[in-house]
């Protein structure tokens, strides 16, 4: 076996394991010659808040890392190359009606095997509206919340997460669905 056959990506494909992005991204950036790979957040504990009432009575907020389409920020369509210009730098809120045009060209999704051509793969807004109509959830919050992806855990922890919490409190949110991209 050559060394490439032993590479993690081959083992993951051969054994059909979930991709280990922690290892993969670390090895990738080291292979490019960068010597300070990103250190992902790691916690031993994990806080847990139980649902306080039936979901059919809850007001549920949708939280996304997708970015509002910005005509001045270059290519953001399906399979657009990674586009840092399309990033947003502060928490935003948008009405869920009419459905906002949110894109993911500013994050590292798999551009070879998927396309971001269907917003419903990364923003379950249409499906949430159906769930609300069906009575599965009490109410979809009329505004969704956007969280920036800035490779800064300090900004996320100290600025953005408290802002999302504050919005949730103001708007009487009982539970939140957060979609990572």
């Amino acid at each position, binding site marked *: 076996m050559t060394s490439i056959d032993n590479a993690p*990506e081959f083992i993951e494909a051969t054994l059909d394991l979930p991709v280990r992005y922690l290892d993969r991204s670390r090895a990738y950036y080291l292979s490019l010659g960068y010597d300070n790979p990103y250190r992902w957040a790691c916690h031993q504990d994990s806080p847990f*808040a139980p649902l306080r009432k039936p979901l059919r009575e809850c007001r549920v907020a949708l939280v996304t890392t997708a970015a509002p389409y910005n005509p001045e920020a270059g290519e953001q369509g399906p399979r657009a190359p990674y586009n840092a210009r399309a990033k947003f730098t502060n928490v935003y809120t948008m009405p869920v009606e009419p459905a906002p045009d949110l894109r993911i060209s500013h994050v590292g999704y798999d551009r070879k095997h*998927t396309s971001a051509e269907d917003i419903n793969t990364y923003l379950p807004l249409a499906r949430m509206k159906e769930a609300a109509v069906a009575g*599965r959830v009490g109410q979809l919050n009329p505004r969704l919340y956007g969280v920036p992806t800035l490779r800064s855990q300090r900004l996320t922890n100290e600025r953005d997460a408290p802002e*999302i919490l504050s919005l949730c409190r103001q708007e009487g949110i009982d539970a939140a669905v957060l979609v990572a991209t």
Partner: protein
Amino acid sequence: MSLVARHLEANGIPTVVMGCARDIVEHCGVARFLFSDFPLGNSCGKPHDVEMQRATLGMALDLLESASAPRTTVQTPFRWAPEAAWKRDFYRLDLTPEQIARAREEFDTQKATLKEKLDAG
């Protein structure tokens, strides 16, 4: 996104995270996680497969109600493709020197763009 979920949980608001990077979310540690073993970008199901998207969100909502302890991960039953070959291709490690040079240039440009945006507020 996992950090935001943790902050909400710590302050009494239950959450469910939907995602495709199992190790990253579990490393961070969240209360409830619905994992789709799909290429990044498909946390809510396959493109144009409304039934799968509906079922995926349904599982996330079920998890909100059913989890009794933190770090509860549920994996959807769906497969991206009959073969798992797609798992080789993200962040490929077998790049040629020319590809490495291009990737570095691209990364440095994007990083500078992000820094400009952050500096501008």
